């Protein structure tokens, strides 16, 4: 049974996902360092932080794609980090996961991709019903008519939208988005943001988004959590984060280079006397 855990002095007791003292190491590198966090039901939580700070690693623990080095993970008061793969598969059906690159199966068509989770967990007797579900999900992401396309024939934004349709195919209680707007132009990125908001409104599910796109974070978040060096350094609503006193938070949200990094850059350009130009080889 999970008890309410404290996040930056705030007591959260109704977390649908709760992690306690989660530490994850890859070799000797500590990526997550004794993190405790509760994801509130029905809300959109955005996890921000610089590249490589462990955001994706964190959400992969939510569905057991990674196991903690130490610590505990709970879903609806059930501890899941120590479950077998078979038991975890049952838990995973409550989740939808949008991978950074979409992770669509390239040997299957768009429709087959969306049908995949349905086919795996239901004995289908009425294929028309399944096709209707595929059509509905594709309509929700604005891609109805693309059923027979292969992922290779879609643009990056379209692939993410199809992946989103697949993630919501089973009407999950929780949707996890891994960098949903990365690699998209600003307009496509905003389309994805609007989709996330629309799905949240229409389905009312719990949403966790991992991103370093602050525009997107401010637009969709009920709550923003910032990771740095494996620890949570800021946690609160968008206004709280905007006015956060921590210098690293301010640097990150304003997209500024740190004075230390700047000094290193300047020093390296002074040191580097040797340079190669094409004319040297003529």
């Amino acid at each position, binding site marked *: 049974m999970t008890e309410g855990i404290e996040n930056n002095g705030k007591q959260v007791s109704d977390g649908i996902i709760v992690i306690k003292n989660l530490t994850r190491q890859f070799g000797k590198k500590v990526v997550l360092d004794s993190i405790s966090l509760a994801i509130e039901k029905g809300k959109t939580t955005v996890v921000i932080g610089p590249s490589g700070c462990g955001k994706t690693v964190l959400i*992969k623990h939510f*569905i057991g*794609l990674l196991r903690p080095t130490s610590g505990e993970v709970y879903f609806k008061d059930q501890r899941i980090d120590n479950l077998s*793969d*078979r038991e975890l*598969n*049952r*838990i*995973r*059906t409550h*989740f939808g*996961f949008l*991978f*950074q*690159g979409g*992770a*669509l*199966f*390239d040997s299957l068509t768009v429709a087959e991709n969306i049908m*995949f*989770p349905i086919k*795996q*967990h239901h004995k289908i007797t009425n294929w028309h019903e399944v096709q209707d579900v595929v059509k509905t999900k594709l309509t929700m992401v604005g891609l109805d008519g693309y059923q027979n396309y292969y992922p290779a024939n879609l643009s990056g934004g379209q692939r993410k939208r199809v992946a989103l349709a*697949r993630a919501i195919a*089973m009407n999950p209680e929780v949707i996890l988005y891994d960098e949903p707007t990365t690699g998209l132009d600003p307009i496509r990125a905003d389309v994805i943001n609007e989709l996330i908001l629309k799905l949240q409104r229409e389905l009312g599910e719990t949403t966790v988004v991992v991103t370093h796109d602050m525009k997107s974070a401010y637009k969709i978040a009920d709550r923003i959590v910032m990771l740095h060096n494996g620890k949570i350094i800021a946690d609160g609503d968008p206004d709280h984060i905007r006015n956060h006193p921590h210098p690293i938070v301010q640097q990150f949200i304003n997209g500024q280079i740190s004075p230390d990094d700047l000094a290193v850059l300047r020093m390296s350009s002074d040191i580097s006397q040797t340079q190669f130009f094409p004319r040297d080889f003529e």
Partner: protein
Amino acid sequence: MIAIVRTKTIEDLGNIGRFGRFVWQAMLTSLRSCASGRTYPLIWNQMNIIGVRSVPVIMITGAFVGMTLAVQAYDQLAGMGLEEHLGSLINISVVKELGPVLAAVMLAGRIGGALTAELGTMNVTEQIDAVRSMGTDPVRYLVAPRILACLLLTPALIIFADFTGVMGGALVSFFQLGINSRAYWDFSASSVELWDVSIGVVKGFFFGGAIASISCYKGFNCREGAQGVGQACTEAFVASFISILALDFALAVISKAVYATFWPIRSLV
């Protein structure tokens, strides 16, 4: 130096343990899949890719094995006045050793490489994680159909290789080397037994299992990037090749012991 050897040994033992666990899990899942009708379309699809599309290349391999054997062995046998026994030598070599082994090596290149590359690419593009995230066991969905297809169809492909090997050897013997066809077939029939053909086909069962298990394992555990996938394919082929040779040796020893128990006296010519 000692530290490097120790680290390498620990790493290798770890790899062997992980491979053993993977194979055990894959075999159990494959057995369970046999009982589940839902997996049959996946197995059928893999049988088409792995088996049906390999038939031409396997037949060509078998034919050249038989033809080359005929050309190479003729001089030795003719020197002893035993050229009419060429059929015995060619056919027993083809059905018992060269047919199964070379067909399996060809399959390791054609199928093993493709399986590793496909699963490796799925791994680095997070498609395997996607399967897992949707509550499906990737071993059941991706590995079991491939292993079952390889297990079932490698023996069948070896029969094709045997057939074309026998025919290739016979045609070269009759038309190029001028051997009397009746004597050729008579000596073949007297020396090649059902046991020899069966042991070759049984070998295919083991070779198929080894190729599929190694290739799927390497694909599932390949490193990121194009280089990682390429390296996994190379490692899968090398490991499959060595396994085929090692299994062939082990099965030859076992089959000989079994044969000697039931039929103690036998002459090749």
